[in-house]
Structures are given as C-alpha cells and as structure tokens.
C-alpha cells in the first residue's frame, strides 16, 4: 500500500472556531477519492493544508512522506484546482497553459490543447473576460493536463453545463486509465461522480464521519416504505438515519445490509424496499450533528 498523503490528528482553529477537528485519514496512490460533505464542513480547509496553503494548528501531515510547507519537491507533485481560481489580470488562456507547463513536471501539452478544443476555449482571450463556465473549464484543463501524482478538484464546475461535466468525467476516466494517479474530487454533485469514486471520505462539522470503499457503501443503507407501524417494526433495532411520514405511511431509512430473509420479511409486511444512493446517504448523515458518528460505524 503506497500512501501519498497521511493525516494524523489534524486540527485547524481560527480564533475560537474549530474548522477541522482531529482529522485522520490517508490517501493511497492511484485511487480516485470523493471528499464529501456540506459547505463549511471543513473540506476546503483540509485541502488547503494538504497543499500547504494553510498551516495546521496541530496534528501531523505528510505528503509523499514529507512536510509539504515550502517544499518544492512535494509541491510540484500536487495540483489543486479551486472553485474560484484567480489569475493575474493580463493573463490569456494560453498564458495560463504556459505557466502551468513550466510548473508541473508531468505537463502534457498535447493533451492540454486537445482539451482546449473539447471545451471550445478561446486561447487568446483574457481569462478575466471568460464566462464562469469557461473559467471552470480552464481549471479542469490545468488539473487534467498537469498529470500531477496528487490532483485535487475542489468544486471544479461552477457554471459548467451537464454536457461539459460529462466531458470532464469522460476525459478524467480515459486519462486516469492511461496515467493512474491520485485524484480527489470534492463536490456536491455526488450522484454524478459516485460511479467514478473508489473511496469516499465524508466530513461533517470538521470531523471525518465516514471513510470507506465506495463499493462497500452501495447497499449499506436502505429505505422501507409502507404502513407506519410495520415500517417501524421492521427497522427496530437498526440504526435509523432518516424518517418521514405522511398519514399512516412512513418511510424509514437505516444502515445495514438486507439479506434474502430480510427482504422476504419486508415483503410479508407489505413494505417496499428502496435503495439509498450515495448522495442520499451523505445527505442523511450530514444534515444534523446528533449522534451520526455512531450511525456510520459499519
């Protein structure tokens, strides 16, 4: 197992505000990770620390086995694409590519220009004059063409339409297959990316509440719908993460896999079983703070 990022007890405080609280996880080489959670959960702060743009208050952080701060050996191996990347006012799209090519040792010029065509970006236009979606596309192109061993995309697609996002997923998968590297995707569009992820880390209120293989998570939660009393009876003894009711009907979502016997029982009770997508699971786990940490011990 080749660890590219190791985080141990990482904490970041701003005055009395704890943004990241005692977070530990690691990223292995050549996997695609989803770093998920609500706005303000602490995801971006964690990514800033990994990429040496913020100092931890305490805890240990190693990137390629070294401290990333002012460490060029490490920093040239990292590519961090932010939601709203700023460029100097006079930069044109071509200038962004030129600067990127000098910074990233694995930069693939041909790939970058192919992506420019794919996303139909005007090379000579000033970045300042680009639309929001075009600006996002510039970030995506830099992120992909950098081929950095650790590439982080933090909400890379503001203003990008569904077609352009689909293009991003296609190119990402194609290029990742040819040139495996560690990719971190932080996004709210979980349904769109869930099939791309190999591993999922969920952050809530500055803490890691879920750190699991994406395939393990599929089928890990279920919803039963039916007569309220029966649905409740069926879910009894399970960790319930969501409830909704309407008249005498209830829908109860809980953790845990259902086996054939469970399914038979549900059918006998006249209950319908619905799968819970990764997005729904994350929504349920992060919508409130109460006791959800226990809910996710699988």
């Amino acid at each position, binding site marked *: 197992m080749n660890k590219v990022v190791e985080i141990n007890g990482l904490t970041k405080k701003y005055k009395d505000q704890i943004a990241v609280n005692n977070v530990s996880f690691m990223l292995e080489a050549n*996997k*695609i990770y989803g770093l998920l959670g609500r706005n303000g959960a602490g995801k971006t702060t964690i990514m800033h620390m990994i990429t040496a743009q913020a100092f931890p208050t305490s805890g240990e952080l190693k990137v390629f086995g070294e401290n990333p701060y002012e460490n060029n050996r490490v920093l040239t191996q990292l590519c961090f694409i932010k939601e709203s990347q700023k460029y100097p006012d006079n930069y044109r799209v071509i200038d962004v590519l030129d600067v990127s090519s000098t910074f990233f040792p694995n930069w693939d010029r041909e790939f970058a220009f192919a992506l420019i065509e794919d996303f139909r970006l005007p090379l000579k236009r000033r970045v300042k004059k680009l639309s929001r979606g075009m600006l996002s596309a510039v970030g995506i192109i830099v992120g992909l063409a950098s081929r950095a061993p650790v590439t982080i995309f933090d909400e890379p697609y503001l203003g990008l339409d569904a077609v352009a996002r689909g293009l991003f*997923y*296609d190119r990402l*998968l*194609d290029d*990742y*297959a*040819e040139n495996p590297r560690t990719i971190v995707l932080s996004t709210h569009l979980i349904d769109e990316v869930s*099939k*791309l*992820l*190999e591993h999922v880390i969920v952050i809530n209120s500055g803490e890691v509440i879920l750190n699991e293989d*994406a*395939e*393990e998570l*599929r*089928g890990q939660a*279920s919803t039963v719908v039916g007569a309220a009393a029966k649905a409740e009876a069926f879910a009894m003894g399970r960790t319930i993460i969501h409830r909704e009711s309407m008249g005498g009907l209830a829908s109860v979502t809980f953790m845990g896999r259902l086996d054939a016997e469970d399914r038979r029982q549900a059918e006998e009770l006249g209950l319908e*079983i619905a*799968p*819970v*997508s*990764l997005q729904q699971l994350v929504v349920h786990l992060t919508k409130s703070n109460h006791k959800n940490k226990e809910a996710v011990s699988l």
Partner: protein
Amino acid sequence: MSLQMDDSRPIFVQIAERIENDIIDGAMPEESQVPSTNQFAAFYQINPATAAKGVNLLVDLGILYKRRGIGMFVATGAKARLMEQRKEHFFEQYVVTMISEAKKLGITVDQLTDMIRRGESRHE
C-alpha cells in the same frame, strides 16, 4: 437506461452479471476477447478498479481467462457452466418460491403442472 447501475448492489457484481449475460446470449462467444477493464470503465463511466474487480471475479470463477500481454478471453465451456448456474438459480428463485406460494393457496402439484402447460400455450 441499461447503463444505469442499481444502487443497492456493488457495481463490480453488476459488471460481472452483464458479462455473464453477454456470454449466455452469445454476444460474447467462447474464446473471443472481452473488452479491457479500461474500456468497460469508459463505457459505463465507472472507476477502472471497480471494472477490474468485476472482470477478476469471473477470472476467479474460470469464466474468463487471461492471455498474458493480450487481454481477457471467454473460456471454453463458460456458456454451459453459466447456463447450469442460472438453471440452479431459476429453480431456487422461481420454482421453490412458486411451490411454497401454491401450497398456501391449496394448489396441488397436478394443478400446477396444468397451469404451466396453460402458461406455455399462451406464451406461443
């Protein structure tokens, strides 16, 4: 759409099932080369590691085999073996369930056989 994955089960299991279906209905004949894991990944827009896991599941079962440096191929006899498995599965899933339901309704085995014949004539 058929490319949609079922959220309740691991994707690699679903990939393995799709390959099995293609072998059973002849879309992937024995000794033919199956797409690479990267092709599967691109086609279904899934993580290549997940696609590899599905393919490897079938390699472990002897349904697919690897030719070094060339790729994955459908093993000879794979179709017959999969059909056997599916028949066993059919027995468990449909026949056993049908008989237990028939018992509940007081349907005898003879009546059941009649019903099957009737169903068959309607199917033609």
